[in-house]
């Protein structure tokens, strides 16, 4: 199994959390590709639609890790977004990486889950897993869960995985990964 992980090493908790993920994937014999948005920021998506209409499937930004991230994501079984919860979503640097996933999606529309969504570009997509900490309150935790669900629907998952919102209980990361990813 291959997992791509995105995190921001500047976040206080990130070192401990990614360390546990690395330890777990090693113990399972899984391949882990890590992207650190703290040391390798990507340009924010500028909404140009070049990835749909000029160079379909490819972002126009070439001077950062964005393309490597896309290639890693589409070839992985799971993508794990590890982030401090900011206003119920992901932090800016992790969100910038997420926004740059748009080339993986096709511009045309279809109905899924009773609403309009974009069609898939590829035949197979990785499972999207979200791990967060530092929510301001329960409302932010609820928003993070809703966002995780919405993103999975937009990334063509039918088997939805619950996010992990850390409450600093020992072993919870490993238990969650076993429950949701294996």
């Amino acid at each position: 199994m291959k997992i791509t992980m995105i995190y921001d090493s500047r976040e206080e908790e990130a070192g401990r959390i990614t360390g546990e993920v690395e330890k777990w994937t090693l113990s399972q014999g899984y391949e882990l590709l890590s992207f650190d948005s703290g040391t390798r920021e990507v340009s924010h998506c500028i909404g140009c639609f070049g990835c749909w209409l000029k160079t379909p499937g490819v972002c126009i930004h070439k001077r950062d890790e964005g393309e490597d991230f896309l290639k890693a994501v589409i070839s992985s079984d799971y993508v794990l977004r590890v982030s401090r919860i900011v206003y119920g979503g992901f932090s800016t640097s992790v969100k910038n990486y997420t926004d740059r996933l748009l080339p993986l999606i096709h511009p045309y529309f279809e109905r899924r889950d009773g609403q309009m969504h974009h069609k898939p570009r590829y035949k197979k997509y990785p499972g999207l897993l979200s791990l967060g900490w530092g929510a301001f309150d329960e409302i932010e935790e609820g928003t993070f869960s809703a966002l995780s669900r919405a993103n999975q629907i937009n990334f063509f998952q039918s088997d939805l995985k619950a996010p992990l919102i850390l409450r600093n209980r020992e072993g919870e990361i490993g238990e969650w990964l076993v429950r949701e990813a294996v």
Partner: protein
Amino acid sequence: MKILMVNGSPRGEKSNSMEILRLVESLLPAEADIDYINTGEKKSKVPDLNEYSTLVFAYPLYIDALPGSMLGWMEACEKDEKGRNPVLNVYALANCGFWEGKQNHIALDMVGSFCRRLGLTWKGGGGIGTGEMILGLKDVPRQAGIRRPIFNLLNDIAREIMMSGENPEPGNEIRLYTQHAFPWILYKYSGEAGWRKQARKNRIGRRAIFARPYI
């Protein structure tokens, strides 16, 4: 009344979000004192929010949430002590390219959380679907049936801004959702035709739109 209009679209001036802010401005009294900020600009600064009575965000939905560039500006506001103004009334207008205005709900929740963190007054806002039609129908009269749901929503928000009545109980902020009066299936077909037309200008044919470069 001094109002800060914050355009969260990375496309800046030529965006549907900026057009929404201009439409809101046109529905406010002429004497309203209004400043604009584009969070997509590299030099966009964190203003002193204590100078304003009202802040109106307008922004597109990016992967079900706020665009990364707008989020960066908001985090900068949070770090800056000038951002703490408990009497600042905050409204949010999110728009998405999908048909359903309701798909913006998470993006509105996020602005609510921003307000709670900074101790601002979250008044609520609206989610607009069929967002790409906002600029596309710019020259169509406002009274036209197709645009009416959008103007009803923006009129309601403008009225709320001007009245600035009692603060809502948490959880009871304004939430209005709408989309242009245009059938779902026609929006899909006309949207896709629009993509093909733009792609052709870039010499990208129908089949090339389906490219899978990372297999």
